[in-house]
């Protein structure tokens, strides 16, 4: 059972759609209530960064099976300006607290795997994974 959903992100309404789709898929995969919330919240943060910084992008949500372990994979892609200083963006305190910044360290704490690729020419791609317990 492989399913894949892509949500185009243009506005704050798409942020809500993306996190609801993620929650739906995770729920179908049998994730528990706490993990559903963590996944939906992580998607919300990533989708909002797209709206704020890149204006347009997409969120791809799919499941993956490694051996007998199930995980949900979320890829947030945009062709925006890219992140100039990645180490700084991944620094705690640079982000969520004051309301500025990308909140990426927080997102990283919500999931099991976090992978970030970004440069000024091709935009930003963030891939996160959460394994079913």
């Amino acid at each position: 059972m492989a399913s894949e959903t892509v949500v185009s992100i243009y506005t704050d309404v798409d942020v809500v759609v993306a996190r609801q789709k993620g929650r739906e898929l995770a729920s179908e995969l049998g994730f528990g209530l706490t993990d559903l919330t963590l996944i939906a919240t992580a998607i919300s943060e990533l989708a909002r960064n797209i709206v704020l910084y890149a204006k347009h992008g997409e969120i791809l949500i799919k499941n993956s099976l490694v051996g007998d372990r199930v995980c949900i994979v979320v890829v947030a892609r945009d062709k925006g300006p890219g992140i100039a200083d990645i180490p700084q963006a991944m620094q705690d305190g640079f982000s969520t607290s004051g309301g500025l910044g990308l909140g990426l360290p927080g997102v990283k704490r919500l999931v099991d795997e976090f992978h970030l690729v970004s440069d000024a020419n091709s935009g930003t791609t963030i891939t996160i994974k959460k394994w079913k317990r």
Partner: protein
Amino acid sequence: MQVPILKQGQYLIASIQAALSDQDLVQLRDALAEKVGRLRARGVIVDVTVLDVMDSFASRTLRDLAHMTRLRGAETVIVGIQPEVAFSMVQLGLTLEGVDTALDLEEGLTFLDKKIKRSTSRG
């Protein structure tokens, strides 16, 4: 999705009914800050029981809302944050610092009664 705001005595009660977009949240914040003056409310309760996600934007907007209404002379209490939502918020580093919270609507009303009585008896 507009959030209905009810007036109950000296209090305004905003009961969120469904997932809110950023724009909806900003609208709620501004509506409450305005209504506190127009309806001469002393307290505000925002019931977030149905919210299954409280991300950085929602937290920040609710915090701003609480601080704005306080500057307008009314206390705000956020009620109904679900346990898994609370866990997720803490992981994200969102603590709603300086904002009063209560378990549910009933506790929120009790909290406001105490807080507002205290401030009026003091002067």
